[in-house]
């Protein structure tokens, strides 16, 4: 699957990224969740991560023409710690803003503002033991 968007990754790099992000978050029927290699999420990853191309290129090149299975992904993670952290962060940021992924978690698909959230009222009866212990500060001369 090749994403058609304005980004700087080569076709080989796109293929490598697709393979790796599919290892990071896999689609799940049980949880009704897409995978990170879903076309919309992948487009977001490739577009949002365009500025990282220079930092990821060397690592991604090692995956060209390789079948990225669990073992290959493990080697990649162990070999490129910094690059993997960048790619993992990018993937998670893009994945958990996808409306389908959020909905599957029963989280409202909306910004926090303006509606906010309801919190339960306080129960200050919990403070009774604290009151009973009395002052705990030191008096200064």
């Amino acid at each position, binding site marked *: 699957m090749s994403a058609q968007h304005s980004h700087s990754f080569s076709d080989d790099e796109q293929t490598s990224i697709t393979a790796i992000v599919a*290892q*990071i*978050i*896999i689609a*799940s029927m*049980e*949880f009704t*969740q897409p995978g990170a290699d879903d076309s919309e999420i992948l487009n977001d990853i490739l577009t*949002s991560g365009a500025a990282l191309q220079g930092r990821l290129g060397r690592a991604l090149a090692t995956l060209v023409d390789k079948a990225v299975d*669990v073992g290959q*992904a493990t080697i990649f*993670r162990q070999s490129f710690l910094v690059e993997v952290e960048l790619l*993992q*962060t990018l993937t*998670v*940021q*893009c*994945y*958990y*803003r996808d409306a389908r992924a*959020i909905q599957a*978690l029963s*989280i409202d*698909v*909306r*910004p*926090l*503002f*303006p*509606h*906010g*959230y*309801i*919190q*339960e*009222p*306080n*129960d*200050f009866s*919990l*403070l009774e*033991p*604290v*009151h009973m*212990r*009395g*002052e*705990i*500060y*030191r*008096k*200064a*001369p």
Partner: protein
Amino acid sequence: MTQDPVDVLIIGAGASGAAVAWSLADTRMRILCFEQGGMPDQQTFPTTGRNWEAWRTGDFALSPNQRGLPEDYPINDDASPIKVTNFNGVGGGTVLYGAHFPRLHPSDFKVRTLDGVEDDWPVDYQTLAPFFAENDRMMCVSGLAGDQAYPAGKAPPMPAAPMGRSGRKLAEAFNARGWHWWPCDLAIATEDYDGRAKCNNLGACISGCAQGAKGSVDITYWPHALRKGVELRTQCCVREITVDDQGMATGVIYYDETGKEEFQAAHEVVMATNGIGTPRLLLNSTSKQFPNGLANSSGLVGKNLMFHPYASIQGVFTEPLDGHNGPHKSILSQQFYETDTSRGFVRGYSFEISRGMGPVAKALTGMKWGLVPWRADHHSAFCGLQDRVTSLYAICEDLPEEHNRVTLDPSLTDSNGILAPRIEYTLSGNSKQILAHAIARGIEVMEAAGAKHIETASPIELAGWHLLGTARMGTEPARSVVSEWGRSHDVRNLFIVDGRIFVTSSGASQTSTLQALALYIAYQMKQRLAN
């Protein structure tokens, strides 16, 4: 070009600069404030977008080095285990703070008398008490009166914010241990007030409050100060403070919003530029009279840098708690705040309880902890964390040491070519012992609360919120930079008003005290100078 002289020039429009501007505006003096950043626009804050978690890592990142905006000066903090966080703009650090608003304790002002360490402050809790109360009203502090960790009389003007499920869970655990806890004082409006809407539990307080419920000074002090006639000029970056042959400040050289160099004359100069920015500006202000930096005859400018080292103790629970919704902080414990030498250290710390995280932070944290794997089990593991993580943060007292310091980096500069600061900082043995104690006690609390998994970190790297001590106050010119009312010992018309003048750091967040101190200094200036 020389601008007409002003009576008072304030450098920095953050927590203390705003308070001083508002207070001094009671006089007939012409007051001008320079701020190197702009006025925040709440409509652009991350919580207005669904992409808020990624957004907060860009222009709203806590680290100026990460943000890299034109108004941000870089900071070389390679030689420090704690990295600086700040915000450069009207409101300063209050734009991105958690609005936790505890006061220092009476004992914090008497550390030499009570504990035999460092120096007593030249002011005390009782002196600041009316200014604490005035500031609570201006910042719209919510909380609950009667906390027995403080003297009577502390009564937040607004009802306490919701503790939430996580606050209750940890409160029950503190009760089980027989330890103090109390709902946090927060500079968060829990009722509509002063044209601002009450908190509606957006969460993500440290990304800026789009609701306007959080008391950042761009929406608390500044509207009032501007109405009283204070002039605020944004995007004005001060390069140096100038002096005359008598060693009196004459004004500042600055770069305006177009990058043009200008001079502003002033009769009094007030610095409110934080614990890194203040020594940077003073050390950049060299002259024949002050070859080692302005106001630095003691040699202490930039020295005695104190952070609040933080430790985190995070628990994963089986039942849902709050997630990220609601004010960042819920309850605090000051059980271990006061010195007890049987613990093996002097001074102490507070526990602050924070709510959970958004989905992105949760997934990444879970991956870091090894609880959220790649591939097949990602989703089930993520669901095991959803709304089920809550955190204890220990904010520890850091005693001053001269080798912890801010100097000028020889080559790093900001966008105007002004030399940038460099930090050298190590944790003291005492601070390490406090952190270790906090982690051990924090684990006890988390276990009492029923956490099924606990993760700890110490010190937290990106937690250099509180930048203290680099221009300390005192009565002896050889041992301090400014007097008991913030006036430079060396330059009689130069004042420093914020946390940089703290003598010691305490084990509590600083904003309430540094603003009360700023109001006290403004009051003194009005009494001594304005009349």
